[in-house]
């Protein structure tokens, strides 16, 4: 293109003119001004430099005439100065700015899930067929008591609960026993998978609503992120985890009141140590009301909580939130996986958190500096193993549940995470991919052609909440079926029997040190 700063474009859009019917569906779907129609020539043209490779146009082309090709990978071959390095320097030389990106790290960090294999029963212990026998995926998050006291009743309970109510669906006196210990507040998950924090503002209302509807349908939870909760979503409160982050956007008593649990966000896997930045263009009227900030103003979350400089300060906030919610809701603390995660998690649990959420280096975001996303933090698998081990060693593992986030791509990752010690997992990228995201990493531009990370009303209506919720429900249903099959294969009939059961995992192609950190034996070693 003439009159533009030299950049090395990444994609080339090829259009088979024999098949192009000039319906202009692609022109209207492209939100990056890469495709346009020239009436004089009666032809559709492309500005390849603008293409981000999101595949919106070729997905919707009714005659399949579009092919998007990667180009510019044919720089002179160089292991050191590859196209990634050259492009980054080119962009910075043109702008003088920090390199921005979206989604999780795309660098080839080792994915430990892919180096872990799962056990199965053979001969000496029978496997279970989940299609014929009951299989329990239900789990509870929250502080568990050190011991429980049970009272045995010799006669029927004076106030029997109606059938189907009470703990695990049993009436209070139906078996002649009752629990005397008062339990800390718990949240009940029908599947050990929740939707991770994505704020209203970063994603639009339609996507928030789809996540809420899917969470309600599947008996699990979604997380508001730090963007507050839109009034129209209060009806999904029972399936909502609300976040209290360093910016305190949208935090008020109703917000805490309608939720199922409260999460204090200390850090995020994609950008540990730095705050958030929602550009002013994304702060529309509704976002402004929900976040309680002026329309069009940048929403800047500070890097630290300015009232938390120690574990003691964290304890104050945890108890302030418990006090505000009448000690009826579990409080979670989310941290990015960093070098000292195990010790920090121990402090968090001792400070009174009911849930610890760990977000690893592959965790996603709407906007983060490239260098921080790709270089700061540690893989979530290692942090999880270390935190679980540390809490066990200190005898406080039952004080809090562990939720792991950052790079869960399939049901096998969920099974491995639970066997490594997690109580449940958070998914976000997987959920967005389910509703169309192609991980083009341009969320920070706010022009998402798939209508996800944009508040532009023209683009946001591309997500039909009902259709998106249906896809999310399908995803979770499919994963839960797969998890049941894997559990059955191991001869287990409840997800809780797998938790922290590292004996059912083996490492593959890992060094002794990595195996030690993960607490795993190498494949080939017996029990």
């Amino acid at each position: 293109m003439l009159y533009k700063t030299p950049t090395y474009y990444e994609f080339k859009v090829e259009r088979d003119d024999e098949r192009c019917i000039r319906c202009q569906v692609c022109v209207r779907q492209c939100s990056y001004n890469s495709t346009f129609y020239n009436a004089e020539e009666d032809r559709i043209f492309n500005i390849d430099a603008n293409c981000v490779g999101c595949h919106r146009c070729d997905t919707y082309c009714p005659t399949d005439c579009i092919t998007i090709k990667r180009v510019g990978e044919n720089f002179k071959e160089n292991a050191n100065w590859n196209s990634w390095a050259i492009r980054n320097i080119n962009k910075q030389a043109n702008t003088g700015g920090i390199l921005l990106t979206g989604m999780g790290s795309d660098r080839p960090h080792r994915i430990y899930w892919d180096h872990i294999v799962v056990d199965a029963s053979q001969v000496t212990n029978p496997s279970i067929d989940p299609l014929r026998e009951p299989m329990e995926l239900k789990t509870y998050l929250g502080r568990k008591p050190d011991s429980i006291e049970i009272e045995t009743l010799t006669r029927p309970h004076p106030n029997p609960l109606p059938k189907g109510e009470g703990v695990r669906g049993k009436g209070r006196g139906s078996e002649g026993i009752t629990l005397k210990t008062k339990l800390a507040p718990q949240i009940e998950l029908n599947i050990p998978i929740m939707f991770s924090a994505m704020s209203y503002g970063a994603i639009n209302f339609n996507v928030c609503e789809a996540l809420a509807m899917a969470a309600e349908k599947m008996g699990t939870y979604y997380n508001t992120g730090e963007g507050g909760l839109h009034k129209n979503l209060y009806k999904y409160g029972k399936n909502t985890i609300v976040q209290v982050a360093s910016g305190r956007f949208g935090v008020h008593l109703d917000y805490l009141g309608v939720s199922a649990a409260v999460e204090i966000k200390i850090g995020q896997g994609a950008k540990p140590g730095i705050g958030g930045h929602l550009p002013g263009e994304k702060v529309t009227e509704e976002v402004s009301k929900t976040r309680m900030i002026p329309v069009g103003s940048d929403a800047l979350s500070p890097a630290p909580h300015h009232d938390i400089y120690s574990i003691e300060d964290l304890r104050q906030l945890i108890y302030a939130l418990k006090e505000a919610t009448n000690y009826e809701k579990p409080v979670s603390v989310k941290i990015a996986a960093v070098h000292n995660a195990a010790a920090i998690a121990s402090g968090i649990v001792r400070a009174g958190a009911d849930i610890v959420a760990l977000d690893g280096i592959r965790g996603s975001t709407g906007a983060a500096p490239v260098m921080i996303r790709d270089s700061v933090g540690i893989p979530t698998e290692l942090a999880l193993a270390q935190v679980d081990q540390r809490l066990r060693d200190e005898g406080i593992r039952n004080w809090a549940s562990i939720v792991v986030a950052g790079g869960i791509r399939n049901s096998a990752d969920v099974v491995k995470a639970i066997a490594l010690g997690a109580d449940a997992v958070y998914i976000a990228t997987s959920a967005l991919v389910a509703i169309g995201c192609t991980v083009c990493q341009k969320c920070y531009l706010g022009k998402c052609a798939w209508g996800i990370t944009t508040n532009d009303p023209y683009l946001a209506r591309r997500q039909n909440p009902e259709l998106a919720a249906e896809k999310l429900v399908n995803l979770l249903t499919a994963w839960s079926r797969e998890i049941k099959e894997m559990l059955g294969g191991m001869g287990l009939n409840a997800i809780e029997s797998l938790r922290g059961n590292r004996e059912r995992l083996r490492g593959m192609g890992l060094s002794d040190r990595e195996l030690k950190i993960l607490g795993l034996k190498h494949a080939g070693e017996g029990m």
Partner: protein
Amino acid sequence: MKIVYPKEEVCMACRLCEVACITEHSKSKDTLKAYKKENPAPLSRTLVEEIFPGLSVSVMCRHCSDAPCIEACFTSAMHRLALSEVEGKPDGRVIVNEPKCVGCWMCIMACPFGVIKRNQYIGEGQGDNPLNPPLLRGKGKGQEIKVKLSSKCDLCPDRSIPACVEACPNKALVHEERN
């Protein structure tokens, strides 16, 4: 009666409903041929109205119970189908009987929704073929004549679900009965 209702809050103006409508009402039922080869070119009977920024809706015939187009038509080309041609079931759709249509456009003047299209093309006169409009009937075979017909949504008689509804990628069109 089941008709097509648009949901403007999730219409994203891709206009795939129009592509589907053109394909369905073509001779070949093939998108490529319908757009590139067929003469006369098939018309879309739905139109996505767009008001920028951010409002669009696909508009097609409402098959009104008190259809003004039927009142306006003096040749009774525009009529209500009492019984479905396919299954013989009660039907209420408003359709054009093309052999009777003379292209006076009174239906277009009367339609409050603006969903009737002018289908005009230069075609070959076919002598006494009853498919020719009455005023053109009898013109010589092989003679180029201007054909004028009204064209509107017929709810896809060959399909159980109209083509536009099935093609909409965001479920912004629904085929249902409302009171």
